[in-house]
């Protein structure tokens, strides 16, 4: 599960950085009444917290802090 989360985080980073290069995102169009690129980036940013929350909840007993 954690590996999947890492992959998703990398994809989010790539998706955000590549935003201006993605033709279907960086164009004068509105999605839900907002600029398409703003919605695209907003959704990707929104995904970071749940993905990290999953990483946090699935942390194993090897956590140094917990061993103390």
């Amino acid at each position, binding site marked *: 599960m954690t590996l999947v989360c890492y992959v998703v*985080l990398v994809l*989010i*980073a790539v998706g*955000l*950085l*590549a*935003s*201006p*290069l993605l033709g279907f995102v*960086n*164009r*004068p*169009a*509105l999605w839900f*009444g*907002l*600029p*398409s*690129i*703003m919605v695209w*980036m*907003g959704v*990707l*940013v*929104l995904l*970071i*917290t749940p993905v*990290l*929350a999953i*990483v*946090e909840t699935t942390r194993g007993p090897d*956590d*140094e*802090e917990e061993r103390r």
Partner: protein
Amino acid sequence: MSTTLVVTLVGILVIAGVGLLGRRGAITDVSDWAVGGRRFGSWTMWFLQAGEVFTTFTFLGMAGLAFAGGAAALYALPYVPLAYAGLYFLGPVVWRRAREQGHVTQADFLAEHFGSRAFGGLVAVLGVVFLLPYLQLQITGLGLAVQLATGEKASGTLSMVVAFVLVVAFVLWAGIRGVATTSYLKDALMLVVLIVLLAVIPAAVNGGIGPTFESVLAHAPRMLTIHAGEYDAGYFISSTVASTLGVLFLTLPHSWPALLSAGSERAVRRNYAYLPIYSLALAIPMVIGFVALTALPPSTSSNGALLVLAGQVFPSWFVGVVVVATAATAMVPAAGILIGMSTLVARNVVRTTTVRGQTVTNQLSVVGLTALALVLAIVRPDLLANLLLLTYSGLDQLVPALALALFARRWVGLRPILAGLVVGEVVVVVLTFGPYAGTVNEGLVALVPNLVVVALGALLERRRGGPREGTPRADRATESSPRPAGSVARGEPSVD
């Protein structure tokens, strides 16, 4: 005295009062004052670090950038969340080592890793020099907000002086705990004001958010995209990468006290996990900037776009509340910046030998640095403006040193790091003030020769048998027992 100015001054007094109330018992030394005994939980850390994200730039700059560059303003949206996603993993490493070694500043961390207090001093001087214009930016931002809202330059100057005298007072009295308590107030106020602005301004000017963007689509469709020109894709991607690297590797010295004040690794991780979602609030002033695009003449000062719209839509007392929120976004980050700068001076530049000496140096630094920034903001507001251009790009040149210092072992010695840093800073200065006309971020461009020099230096070191300076960190760590929480590092002053 106008209603707006009265509300603003009362708000500034309330913010400072809350900061003064933040103190809890006696503060024993600079470490306690700067990192609060390393006992803060996720909740307090959230507000401390959110306080650093939302500065006057949030209120005035984001709206102004959207007004001037449209969707290009979106570069400011992803870099903090991306960096925090990385800091979810790196933050605990820094926190743990700093706790074990008693580090309080970025320079402590680097000096320890590279085995050179002189290098720590150099990093501290760079940090202070690059942060001074950033501090001044908060002061001038506050003054500009009051001036734009009241239409009187004198009111702006008065507000700057009152606000920053009070900032010095609560920073000296309560340290980082004062910053934490004001952060609660600031973020609550800022969110309420942002939501009201979002709900009212688009509706009052264009009939809603949807009609606002339909108007932009009809009359200025290019502004909905990242297009060719000053704010092209190169600007967007390089600025995002450079800013992400800067935040991720904690190059801004004032980001350290908030991290090091955490009570546990879990608090650090949870904070970095949950903060990205909060960064979405940056989109609100961007929407206001798009409203300005449809309603204000192009000659309008971009930084004043939000306040001009607020003045057209709201009664003067609420404009005062908006200015108070702006003032809070100046005062609270400025307080954090002051703590970051003064601890650098007290611990890494002026090497006092006693706790009392360090405390006095620290207090004098807070007063002196604020006075300098305030006087320059009033008398020569353009003097530090050029230096501000160097702040982020210049601090980005610390990325190789900070990245390598995350490893327990010293893989690269001081000399390659120092050479790379010098080359990087020179390139940044040349690009910033020279004929460079590209849109790729100067700091990112300068990182390339910086990294090349570090890599070549490291190779030379390998050929000569590895880093020569001192013993590798990992070996030294095994030689000494871990320090208890809140203890002090080697070389720290003794109790007077």
